[in-house]
């Protein structure tokens, strides 16, 4: 049969090594066209167009897509976002505690997981989001605006995160926000029609990913400092090799066993929480009664069997 097109993003995670090695092709026996995308919204558009059955997005775009009833399912998590995304405030901005954020300019790429995390953190701190000047900037512009001193803080990911950390301090990170009940994820979605017709493909796909995660979790430092791994990840994502080593430990990569449990109630709850949050922000018009049909551990379980 013909090739499968998969939309990936440039998030750094161990499975990129398998992707670079062609492990997915070997395991599934199919040719795979890997296509790089810049944002979750674009991946979703591509998935919706039918050209792309499988795509890699964050949990915010997933919630938006699910709330609008796109026929997709989350079948695999590629990372629980941790220290890799953080809210940094600039030295000299006068922000020492969350309450100081009021009236300050905080930049965040709208709709990204950091946007959700920022608002969740503010809610946790009981800071009125309406009183914080939240600006929409892409990471590269965040770095530039930071340099000029135009913004007082930013909730952003690497490598911009590293640049702003150099002259600022971390107020909180997604690892912490996750503990406050607003976890964010990187994950794989699949079109439902494709999932029904190709369970075996997905099973193999999950299996390969689980394999690399296990390899990573066994020895995170060793994996991240292995030049071969680093080179492969850098090549696929376009990041600089020296950054990859630092980026990898920023997220948590749950094993398939953990995911089998995660991709049930807990994940459904995270998606519906995010959706409720989006609704409250006026970003989506209506909510689904139940988000469980957008999440499945069927393929993980199949892989584990």
């Amino acid at each position, binding site marked *: 049969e013909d090739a499968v097109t998969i939309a990936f993003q440039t998030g750094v995670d161990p499975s990129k090594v398998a992707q670079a090695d062609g492990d997915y092709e070997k395991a599934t026996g199919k040719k795979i066209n890997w296509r790089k995308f810049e*944002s*979750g*919204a674009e991946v*979703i*558009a591509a998935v*919706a167009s039918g050209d792309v059955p499988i795509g890699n997005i964050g949990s915010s*775009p997933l919630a*938006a*897509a699910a709330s*609008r*009833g*796109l026929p997709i399912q989350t079948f695999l998590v590629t990372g629980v976002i941790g220290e890799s995304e953080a809210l940094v405030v600039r030295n000299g901005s006068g922000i020492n505690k969350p309450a100081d954020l009021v009236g300050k300019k905080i*930049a965040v790429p*709208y*709709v990204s997981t950091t946007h959700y995390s920022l608002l969740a953190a503010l809610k946790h701190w009981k800071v009125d989001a309406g009183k914080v000047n939240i*600006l*929409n*900037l*892409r990471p*590269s*512009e965040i*770095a*530039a*605006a930071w*340099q*000029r001193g*135009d*913004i007082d803080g930013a909730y952003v990911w690497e490598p911009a995160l590293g640049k702003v950390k150099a002259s600022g301090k971390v107020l909180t990170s997604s690892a912490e926000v996750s503990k406050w009940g607003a976890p964010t994820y990187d994950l794989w979605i699949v079109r439902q029609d494709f999932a029904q017709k190709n369970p075996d493909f997905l099973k193999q796909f999950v299996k390969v990913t689980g394999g690399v995660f296990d390899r990573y979790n066994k020895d995170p430092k060793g994996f991240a400092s292995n030049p071969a791994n680093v080179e492969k990840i850098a090549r696929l994502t376009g990041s600089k090799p020296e950054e990859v080593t630092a980026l990898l430990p920023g997220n948590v990569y749950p094993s398939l066993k953990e995911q089998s449990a995660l991709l049930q109630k807990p994940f459904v709850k995270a998606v519906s929480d995010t959706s409720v949050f*989006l609704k409250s922000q*006026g*970003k*989506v*018009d209506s909510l689904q009664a139940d988000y469980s049909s957008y999440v499945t551990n069927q393929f993980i379980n199949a892989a584990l069997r």
Partner: protein
Amino acid sequence: MSQQEHVLPVPTAPAARQRTWGIRPLAPWQWSSLSIGSLLLLWWALSASGLVPALFLPSPAAVLTKLQSLVVQGYMEATLQQHLLASLQRMLLALLAAVGIGVPLGILIGVFPLLRHWLDPIIEFYRPLPPLAYLPLIVIWFGIGEVSKVLLIFLAILAPVLIATTHGVASVHSIRQQAALSLGASRGQLLRHVILPGALPDILTGIRIGLGAGWSTLVAAELIAATRGLGFMIQSAAQFLGTDIVVLGIIAIALVAFVLELGLRRLQRVLTPWHGKAL
């Protein structure tokens, strides 16, 4: 429209009845309405047929409903009117700057070869650059305020205006320049009284093209820390698959741009009635 209506076979002669190709049972505006109507019909048919999922092409009815909420409650903390106003301000400011700088500069470039050779590489360097590519540099140099946004739109309008003006200067019949010079026109007077009006038809067309380019840079410009603006609204909504808002934003842009375009065309007809006349 009467001046430009009858290009063939009798373009100039404004005699009582003129020959046109084909019959015209309908008035121009009727034709145009028909065309817009058919567009709307197509939209309705596409979304009603279910060929395109509502997620990507919401039905006219859904968009209308959304329009109401946008006008009343707004989106991203601003109503549609406020978004529109913010964008319109940026556009007009950029347009003003682009015309104010582009037309004189284009004329000077057209007239002074030296200046052309000097500026040419610079203009030709910036002209093809994708705004998305140099956005960080704009931010670093001009910050995240209005200046950066207007600058980006300005740059998009400037290039067509400049090129069209230079082209227009080259189109000014040399005999008209000679006539003015031998009536004692100074360089400045020549520019003011002969070259500028002679190039005017082209300049106005350049502005029309430039304005289109400016609008289509709006989203990129409003990527820079905007809190209001049609581009900002569209872009925010697009991220959340809010296609209804995207469609509304698109329609709003199209409408405003269309009104400006019609104004420019009228200006062109009023200011340059001689255009195309063989003299």
